[in-house]
């Protein structure tokens, strides 16, 4: 389990990184924290000829809040930085991100793994991908032609496939609106593993009543997906309580039609969706 040979390049800045990527072509790969990539390289499931290391670009390690209420997360911010961020740094209404970090691998993975790396890797069960989809994040990609912003709905395209071009570097993730009543929850047979099923629920909650919300699911498709059926139940609204949440969860489960996988067949995944969406609704309310 030793990686195949590659040529190592260290980027001096973000623009330099994109220039390197453009120069080296599609046999090159960006490495940030490397927590997924190096494992795949050790198995020789990934074998880039060139590795462009952006790990030293400290200018991409930040959490910025603005007057518009958005949270901008630098691509090289680690999971652990988010996990340990103060309310002030995180901004009002983003506690869901901090709470979600407990589900990302284990501490030694979170200290190295980055938000941008996780999203660019586009694993269908990864927490950041799910959060991005659920919370309508925008991905800021820097390429030879400058920056472009890609909405989450367009960003994820399939198993480990994103809208990033080979010469583009993901530099920032923007969460446009606070999500005060939101929660991520998931289930894996063993703590810290990739989830069998994961979900994010974000509720529009006012005066004890739900006036709409978002439900995103991971592990049910090649990419994280929203559940329009479950969101329709939330949009009809009602008191924040078991009746509404059970209905929402049921709608998500009925519509998901998840594929058979190693950890459980379709029926079981549907049952997990039902349970997890309900739990996430309850947790979202309790924030």
């Amino acid at each position, binding site marked *: 389990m*030793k*990686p195949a040979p590659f040529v190592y390049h260290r980027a001096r800045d973000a623009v330099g990184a994109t220039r390197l990527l453009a120069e080296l072509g599609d046999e090159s790969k960006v490495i940030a924290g490397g927590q997924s990539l190096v494992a795949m390289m050790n198995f*020789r499931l990934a074998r880039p000829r060139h590795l462009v290391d952006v790990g030293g670009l400290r200018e991409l390690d930040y959490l910025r809040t603005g007057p518009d209420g958005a949270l901008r997360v630098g691509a090289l911010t680690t999971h652990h930085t988010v996990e340990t961020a103060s309310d002030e740094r995180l901004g009002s209404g983003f506690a869901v991100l901090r709470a979600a970090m407990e589900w990302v691998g284990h501490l030694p993975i979170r200290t190295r793994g980055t938000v941008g790396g996780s999203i660019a890797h586009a694993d269908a069960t990864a927490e950041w991908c799910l959060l991005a989809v659920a919370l309508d994040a925008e991905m800021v990609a820097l390429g030879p032609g400058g920056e472009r912003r890609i909405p989450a709905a367009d960003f994820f395209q399939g198993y480990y496939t994103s809208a990033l071009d080979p010469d583009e570097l993901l530099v920032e993730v923007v969460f446009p609106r606070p999500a005060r009543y939101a929660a991520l929850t998931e289930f894996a*047979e*063993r703590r810290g593993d990739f989830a069998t099923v994961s979900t994010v629920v974000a509720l529009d909650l006012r005066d004890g009543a739900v006036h709409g919300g978002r439900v995103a699911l991971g592990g049910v498709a090649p990419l994280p997906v929203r559940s329009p059926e479950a969101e329709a139940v939330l949009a009809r609204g009602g008191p924040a309580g078991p009746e509404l949440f059970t209905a929402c969860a049921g709608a998500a489960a009925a519509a998901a039609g998840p594929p058979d996988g190693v950890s459980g067949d379709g029926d079981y995944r549907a049952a997990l969706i039902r349970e997890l969406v*309900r739990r996430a609704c309850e947790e979202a309310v309790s924030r």
Partner: protein
Amino acid sequence: MNDTTAAHQRATGHGRPTTPGGAWIGASVGRREDPRLLTGRGRFTDDIQLPGMLHAQFVRATVAHATVTGIDLSAVLDVPGVVAAFTAEDLELGDITARLGRPASEFVATAMPVLARDRVRFVGEPLAVVVARDAYAAEDGLEAAKVSYEPRPPVVSAARALAPGAPLVHDEAPLNTLLDVSMFATEGIDAVFDGAPHVVRVRASTGRQNALPLETRGAVASWDAREDQLLLQTCTQVPHQVRTVAARCLRLDERAVRVVVPDMGGGFGLKCVVGREEIAVAAAALRLDRPVKWIEDRKDALTASFLAREQHYDARAAFDADGRILALDADVVCDMGAYSCYPFTAGIEPLMASAEMPGVYKVPAYRVRGRAVTTNKAPTAPYRGVSRPQYVMVMERLFERAARELGMDPVEIRRRNVITDFPYTGVNRITYDPGSYRESLDLCERLVREEGWYAAREEAAAEGRHLGIGYACFSERTGYGSAAFAQRKMEVVPGFDISEVRMDTSGAVVVTTGTMSHGQSHETTMAQIVADELGLDIAKVRIHQGDTDRVTYGWGTFASRSIAVGGSAVRLAAAKLGEKLCRIAAARWELSPDAVELVTGGIRRRDGTGEVVGFPELADIAYLKAHLLPKDVEPGLSATATFDVFNDGTFSNATHGVVVELHPGTGQVEILAYLCVEDCGVAINPQVVEGQCRGGIAQGIAGALFEQVTYDDQGEPSATSFMDYKVPTAHEIPDVLIRHLQTPCAFTETGAKGAGEGGTIGAPAAVLNAVNDALRPTGTELDTTPITPETVQRAFGRTVEHPS
């Protein structure tokens, strides 16, 4: 039998006996292994660096069953950094063949070539060894190897293996059966079943597991020209057996092979058989005349190493109206994979199950058929517990099912059936030495009750939650001597152990033992035994093992034999040395040897007069002033002793109690409490015994709930990483409350019984029973492990609406 809990608590003062001059045995002496392991100064196989050392990896089969039509390594040699590559043809090695002395109708011996020649039988089977400048280049080399196959239909399950017309894994083994024994068959057993008021049946299967030492297998082979000897440094539980096989395969005298075992990162049985790779690496080192290192990577460790535990039972038990068992009839099929392991053979699992299945219960009539079948999966080795986790699980399921049918309490039905009068000779013709079966059961139930779990179960039920309580009551035969192994008709009969104790002129002693610690703390516990016997401070005692040139002979460590057998040899050798010291001291005082005695630090007159003469002073005479020795005493201070067990061995026992909560929404099984009441006779070091219990229980839980090696229908292994092979973490493994009972063994030298495997044996049964207890409202009963969340969720999904 004494409840030693209080005594144990008193004895856990760290690092010393509790009272000055008190016994080292029975104290939780701090481990002497720890300082080097805690500071990174242990020396494991992969830590060895030799000048000019090369690195090996193996070209492995990519199909489960095929005729090999060609191996082309020409491109391998062009890969930068690759130094050499060898096939079986290049190395001309003898095969590894394990045998039983049984008729052909019962056992078929099959050869395991060191490197596969014209046939491969499992994905991962080694075909060629590539040797390179470093481990990276060696792996580059593997990618350049070209192997051509003519595929054969793979045999991927025991059921398929036994089906008429199934393809043959070994042409010499009809019906893919390597062992087929029918035993005991008490006369009239069918009539007992016909006439019994209650007959229950359990059909159970257990998943294939990997013992999974965290350190993978590995070896460093080098030729020592000065000693005219191959030095094979390898992590094995059985160094002398590796020497024998290496010498035979390489066609060397045994003296020309020295096997040395560095620190070892666990073994659990996986390393108690002789592997093929270490022999191939030795051959490559000889061929190249350079040191060669091989460290198995995790992918190979998960797919191409030795596995265990995949068994299928169809068992029936007859009971009378009072819940007393009348008869037991079992059919046991063990899926042993592609090859018979050396020295135990593929018979190891079915023979263990067949001989010992009645366990702690008074079973009047018994019949069993045990089979080992060969399949196109990685071969097996005797993993911690060997069949006992499985047959105990089946027995405990039979009793639980009978209890349900009779409307009895599950503990009460066990109470009526456990052996209470010892020695007890069972229907399986094994004589059980005294144990505390009934007492452990009673105490465990009492603890579960005192901890409030019965009440909690009721409260939970009222709230619509699902708590379950499960037990397993079992024994574990330990201290197998030559007699017990000979009964299995092994051609290579393990059993005895040899120890040498040698004192130097400073009064310090070096002790050799044929056992092989790989985490069990022998450097501490064996030293405790010697310190007690000679009245020495433990700091003066050094244990040596794992060097075939330094240790006369040894069978290594497996089957919980080390303290019971090895510890006894160590004590006898120390006692012999003590006698010699007494004779020297007595001669000096012109007394008879009976008139002096060993005390802490030396020897004194029995009448208490005069001074204590210290060991250095006596050693001075033995070595440096030999002219002062009496005529019948030889110079030097060393003594050798052997120990063997001439009866059926000694039985440790335990009862485990488990409380689980099932979460219907996800199917998650959460262990709320785990209690263990164990009796391993005299505990040399209670802290070490508890460590063995807890570690064993964790592995048992792993088998019950998490770990399974699976294959697709072409024999391709599907668990190739730790993502798929789910070794549980601290999040899944609960704390374990342990209580000790102590029924000393009458025939080991310290009163100790073995303690290595019990935890692993009891856990699957106890967990499975607890899950089934919690599943009661669903009407579903589960008899197959691992229990997955999906199975549990489905049981609820079918039957009850869970509260939200």
